[in-house]
């Protein structure tokens, strides 16, 4: 924190700056190192499974999102974490004990 107040940028300027900086990838940012064209055009949609307890047993439901939510690892992880924070029961993968025969959810 610096102590000398300076003029505050507008909300729009802050949002634009965040957008610009998020587009600049750091070294070691996973798939962000690949060209934007290669990562942004291929993903058409993203489905995130949640697991609902019903009277008849567990039901897996897929929440559908536009492919743009996976433009970057940050954006995708942020979506997943926000669903988790809202209390949605994400259907998390866990290895079965007999994992060497068949893996499962």
């Amino acid at each position, binding site marked *: *924190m*610096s*102590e000398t107040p*300076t003029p505050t940028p507008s909300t729009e300027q802050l*949002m634009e700056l*965040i957008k610009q900086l998020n587009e600049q990838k750091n070294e070691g940012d996973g798939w962000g190192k690949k060209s934007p064209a290669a990562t942004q055009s291929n993903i058409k949609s993203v489905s995130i499974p949640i697991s609902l307890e019903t009277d008849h047993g567990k039901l897996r439901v897929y929440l559908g999102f536009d492919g743009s939510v996976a433009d970057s690892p*940050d954006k995708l*992880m*942020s979506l997943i*974490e926000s669903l988790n924070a809202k209390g949605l029961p994400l259907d998390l993968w866990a290895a079965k004990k007999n994992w060497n025969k068949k893996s499962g959810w």
Partner: protein
Amino acid sequence: MKPIIFDIETLAADDEQLDLEQSFLKPSGNIKDPKKKESNLIEKNATMRKKAALLDSALICVAGIKCDKGIFSFNSLPLGKDEIATLSEIGICCITSKDEKELLSNLSLFINNQYQPETEIVTFNGVNFDLPKSRFRYATHNLPLPEAFDSKVKIVDLMLRYSKHYSMSKVPFVSMGEVATRLGILKDGKIMSGAGFGQLIEDGEYFKAVLYNALDCIITEKIYYRLCR
């Protein structure tokens, strides 16, 4: 190493807290004249009240995290649903709390979940502000510290690193905007200072306050990759 970028924003301490802090003020030891002692105390009191957001008793209202999972804003601000949705659209996940205690609890859960032996906490002026401030607020609420805030965990303070190893001027206090501009991360360093954050809160600009903190986290991460990788 696994960096977790950490940056907090604080509210100005209220009158009750300021009066308590005032009771701890002492005139400078080298002043003998009672009148000068009194005026020295008045001066110190005025300075303290001007920097009310930097006091130990000032409340944390936003704690920003940037890590490999994304950007997270733990805050106790009255944000609207639409504002939270807009923040989510630009990649900022908001975890809102009713007060500072709940904010710190949520932050602990998240940081402990992210913590690994190779974690390093990355801050800009965190050694002298963000970390001691946070530790004290955890202690005030009688809450256990997140594991990553323990003194044994590696803390990277980019302000100290810059002034010690990357600048010949050796000025100990340098703003994040200045460092980011010098490194070419920002075109100009006209980023609002932490001291002006209170004005945003006073004006009810909570959305902008979250943006500002998130921006600080993003820029801190950019500086980290320039100076530490």
